């Protein structure tokens, strides 16, 4: 894997991590309204996928969307402003944490109804095909979403029509407090896909290079007329499900096991080992990103509130 790519993926993962750390501290200080579902630990999934995509390839996201949006190139300023509920936010302050995205970057503002994004992704892929657009769609979903009816309908339709779509299932073992293994009647969640005639794969979602390579191959297959595909990224969230969750339903030993696989530490080790970076230059990257984030916070804080006037305006086109 070339140096430039590794560096880019490292920077993006780190940006997501530091963005959310900043966000969380602002949230705890009461500066950010609403609730947060943090992506901490899962960064390699979003980055490994989106690094393969152009602005014309689209992603669909979930209630845990910050990482997806940043990886797809949504600006930090517009993300931060959205979380501060400001008019300059990527959704004008109308969406909030669970709905970030920017269609100009191919990031459909996220959908917080579990599974709700899945048939919509199928629709986008169908439209790409109808319009003979040579682009692909990646639909992020959690492990929990595979038990929604919408998943089954969306996946089946994508399958019968052979659409240019990759379902990226981030299996972090839990949907909120519920372990996925207790909620499926098959051994592995990918077993489900056989029933729909959709080829499925699993990958170590804590290794960005592996996710990248897998998606790269799947896109090649799609370009040669195959598809859709389903990719399970095995991952873990290092933090609670949402703002107030303290993870009492998880074993400490399990958390420790996964923390050892931290995707950012992993790529940093690789970068150092391959002599692409040394610790000094890594520190510099941290500082650069932190500076960018401070700028984003400044931008967000100094931005105006959204206008009540626009509420009616945005109801109908």
């Amino acid at each position: 894997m070339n140096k430039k790519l590794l560096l880019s993926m490292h920077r993006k993962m780190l940006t997501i991590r530091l963005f959310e750390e900043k966000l969380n501290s602002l949230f705890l200080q009461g500066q950010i309204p609403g609730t947060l579902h943090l992506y901490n630990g899962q960064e390699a999934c979003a980055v490994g996928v989106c690094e393969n995509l152009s602005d014309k390839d689209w992603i669909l996201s979930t209630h845990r969307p910050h990482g997806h949006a940043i990886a797809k190139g949504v600006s930090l300023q517009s993300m931060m402003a959205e979380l501060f509920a400001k008019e300059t936010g990527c959704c004008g302050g109308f969406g909030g944490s669970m709905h970030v995205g920017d269609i100009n970057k191919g990031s459909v503002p996220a959908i917080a109804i579990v599974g709700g994004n899945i048939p919509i992704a199928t629709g986008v892929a169908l439209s790409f095909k109808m319009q003979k657009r040579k682009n692909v769609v990646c639909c992020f979903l959690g492990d929990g979403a595979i038990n929604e009816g919408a998943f089954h309908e969306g996946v089946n339709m994508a399958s019968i029509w052979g659409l240019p779509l990759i379902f990226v299932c981030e299996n972090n073992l839990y949907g909120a407090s519920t372990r996925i293994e207790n909620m499926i009647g098959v051994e592995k969640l990918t077993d489900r896909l056989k029933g729909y005639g959709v080829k499925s794969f699993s990958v170590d979602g804590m290794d960005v290079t592996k996710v990248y390579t897998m998606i790269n191959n799947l896109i090649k297959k799609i370009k040669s007329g195959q598809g859709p595909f389903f990719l399970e990224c095995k991952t873990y969230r290092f933090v609670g499900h949402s703002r107030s969750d303290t993870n009492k339903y998880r074993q400490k030993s399990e958390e420790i096991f996964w923390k050892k696989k931290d995707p950012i530490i992993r790529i940093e080790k690789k970068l150092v080992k391959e002599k692409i970076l040394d610790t000094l230059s890594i520190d510099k990257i941290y500082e650069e990103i932190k500076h960018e984030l401070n700028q984003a916070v400044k931008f967000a804080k100094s931005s105006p509130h959204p206008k009540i006037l626009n509420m009616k305006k945005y109801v109908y086109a």
Partner: protein
Amino acid sequence: MSMRNNKNSTQKMTIAESLRLTIQQEMERDKKVFCIGEDIGIKGGFGGAFTVTLGLSEQFGHERILDTPISETGIAGVAIGAALSGMRPIADVQYSDFLFCAMDQLVNQAAKLRFMSGGKLKVPMVMRAPGGATTRGSQHSQSLESYFLHVPGLKVVCPSTAYDAKGLLTSAIRDDSPVLFFEHKLLYGSKGNRAEKGSISPVGEVPLYDYTIPFGKAKIRKKGKDVTILGKLRSVYTALEASKTLDQHKISCEVIDPRTIVPFDSKLLFNSVKKTGRLVIVDECTKTGGWAGEISALVQENIFKYLKKPVVRVTAPDTPVPFAPKLENFFIPQAKDVVKEVLKLF
């Protein structure tokens, strides 16, 4: 729980605690009662999105506090099937917004099975649904009571106090019809890290003994003579707050809480409006096609000649719920909006 030792007494509690106690007592009383929903009984988990079932799986086991996959159509359908065949399920959707995922089961099935079977079937189920705007954006903030008002065959319950929560939930569990039981997120009074910012958290004396509140019996929350203000769930408190300001304007408000909107206590409302000649309805549901409009029609059809002024609706506007607090505050009917509209009537 120690509270069960002296069943004749009352205890101060929040709505979340009152609902929990009710479920516990009904499950102890009747083996047919069980709970079904997402994240309701997981060890070390949340006890549902708002702590209502916290601790119950320890007492009743995971068969009666039944955790499901994320499958709302399934939750509703399974509850219906179980209800048809002898059980009394209490289903839970974490946020009322997700009721839409289960709409076919609730509207085409639960509401109609009794009717379609010529009265031979019954569906004694409760669907608990937390609603209300709490800066979570358009898909986690809606007030959906009005949608279900439009479905013949469903009962719709809206408790606003801890006392009512227990009496009404007990009635709902024992009722042979499907009941949509709406709870407002800002009224739970959940404690610790589940507490909601901006909570009103009514705490009230709740009897530990068994009691029911019949459906279709409204409650006068404040007596008055110049104007009637009708509001449910959180809007009861908005109305009460407005009435305090209006006292200073020498306008005496009668505040009515319907407690159930299907069935609806029109008699109590009519008596009040006959006395005051003025009616303002406060509601967090959006305006068009909503509950407030329905009540307005009901009043003008029946007691038009008593009205001194047109009926006024103070509701959410016809938009999705916005995220930004500034916009959300505009979306939610506020006491000052009620005051403004009432003043116009004099």
